[in-house]
């Protein structure tokens, strides 16, 4: 999952960045509204964590532009302005959720998970498909009831594919979701993780559509 963090406060930004990365999210961090606009134009994110009081371009303007482009990326507004009027304004302008600083990290993570889940069209917190179930909160993966241990990257790829069964994701798309700008990626990294997943979950679960990418089929074949 790839997130865009829009935060002008350096101290908050670097802490959130590290904490989200430790959670296995690929995070890009921009520090002003113009950069946020540019990032949102050039890249699709699974979620935007948006501060409203931004230099150069206000967070509200960023949000308005995003929604004007019919972009449905979930937006979680995180700001220190807590007046009800401002919260209502933010939500009415197209934000999906609102969290007031200072917040508990656990709450932030839970809201991020909920928004991503909703964006994928699901309400239930645990994904279960073809005998594989993953719990995004505990990061537990089971295959036919047996616990399976995955690396962080393997887990991320499985989560991406399992979130939308039947949808083919190209290697490039997977890379984009897995890595932020700063990470350097080796050319065959995705293949390595797919190979690892197949070894742990059986060869049939992830299918390769040649020339297109990878998918988890909607139903067992």
């Amino acid at each position, binding site marked *: 999952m790839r997130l865009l963090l829009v935060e002008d406060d350096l101290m908050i*930004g670097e*802490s959130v960045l590290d904490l989200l990365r430790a959670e296995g999210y690929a995070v890009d961090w921009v*520090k*002003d509204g113009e950069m946020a606009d540019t990032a949102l134009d050039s890249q699709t994110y699974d979620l935007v964590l948006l501060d409203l009081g931004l230099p150069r371009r206000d967070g509200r303007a960023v949000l308005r532009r995003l929604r004007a482009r019919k972009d449905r990326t979930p937006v979680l507004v995180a700001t220190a302005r807590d007046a009800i009027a401002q919260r209502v304004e933010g939500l009415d302008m197209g934000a999906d959720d609102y969290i007031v600083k200072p917040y508990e990290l656990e709450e932030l993570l839970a809201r991020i998970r909920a928004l991503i889940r909703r964006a994928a069209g699901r309400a239930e917190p645990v994904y279960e498909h073809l005998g594989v179930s993953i719990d995004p909160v505990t990061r537990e993966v089971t295959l036919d009831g047996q616990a399976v241990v995955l690396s962080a990257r393997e887990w991320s790829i499985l989560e991406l594919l399992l979130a939308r069964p039947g949808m083919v994701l190209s290697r490039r798309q997977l890379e984009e979701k897995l890595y932020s700008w700063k990470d350097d990626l080796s050319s065959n990294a995705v293949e390595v993780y797919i190979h690892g997943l197949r070894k742990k979950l059986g060869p049939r679960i992830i299918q390769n559509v040649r020339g297109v990418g990878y998918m988890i089929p909607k139903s067992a074949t």
Partner: protein
Amino acid sequence: MSLPLSHSLRGRLLWLLLVAIISLAGVQAVIAYRTALAEADVIFDYQMQQMALSLRPGLPVGGELGEPYGTKDEENFDFVIQVWTADGLRVFQSTARAELPQRAVLGFSTVQARGTTYRLFSVAAGAQVIQVAQDMAARREMAGTLALRTVSPMLVMVPLLMLVVWGVVSASLAPVSRVRQQVATRQADDLSELNEEDLPDEIHPLVHELNLLFHRVRQAFDAQNNFVADAAHELRSPLAALKLQVQGLRRAADDATRDVAINRLNAGIDRATRLVEQLLVLARQQSNSAVGAKAVPIDLTTLARLALADAAGSAAARQIDLGLVQGDPGIVMGHEAALRILMRNLLDNAIKYTPAGGTVNLAIRCHDGQTLLTVDDSGPGVAVEDRQRVLDRFYRVAGTEGSGSGLGLAIVKTIADLHHATLSIDRSESLGGLRATVTFTNVS
């Protein structure tokens, strides 16, 4: 004397007018009484005189005193007539009861007899003296009746007059009631202006001043609201950072990560501390300006040397060349501690935003009756569109270090305002970065 309703204009007017009218009626009654009495004196005296003179030719000479002529005590005549002979023998008396003392005085006189006052007129007729007397009570009674007749219509008019006064006063005070109504019905937080139309000249200035006061209070109110909103944001940000830093520390898996987390937490605490300190400085300066502490003459250049010494350490740490380029002897009226904070904040700002190896210049210049304090730096400067906003509380220029409180220039501005000086932000011509100028107007 405290009148009932003395706090109500209407009540006061009514009472005072009532008292005035009644006093006037009283005075008029007294004057009427006195006048009537004087006139009665003139008329009755003339009557008595005529009566006595008309008796003179017809008196019997040396006659004996007979029974009083046709007298009945009950009739109690106003006038009493007596006739005396030269050797003191009373020869005639009109009523038996009215024995008046014999008077040698001829003409008019006043005597006390039988518990009342008599007016007496005596005239000599040959060997006899004719005396005509009248009880003064009769005269007073007549004068009293006359006076009452003069005043009584006025007493009847008093209630009517009061009604009219009530009506006129009420009508005249209607605009006051209207204003009162407007004030009474408004919400506690409604500080909008009152309607000044159609107000009488006596009340208009009061309402106008009230409106000006409303305006000032509203401005203070708005400023306070803005400050609270800004402060809420700015106090929460360092706390949010601290909270995240603690969570980072808690989640740190190894020593290296833990060290990073601890350093961040330290920096976060420093930042929160700085913000609190700056807020305190700001609050102190604002309360100073509210209290109106007494200004004393201060040499800015001497103060500038102290401020430069204060800032030298942080400048050296970043290899910044800090110095005084001009030091005119500029004396301004002000508060030393506040001005030192002002200089320190300007220098700190310049040092913070100037890259290592840069230059910061402080100068005190005097000309045209003004003393200018300028701080130039070789940093990136501030874009034209941001220059006004950097003076706002909590405003930080985009992409600057997160450690600033955003209060530095707001504090400078508050202190400048306290000294009736102006703060302006420009491009530095000499160093290419930012130039902050505080312009003091010299006192003559």
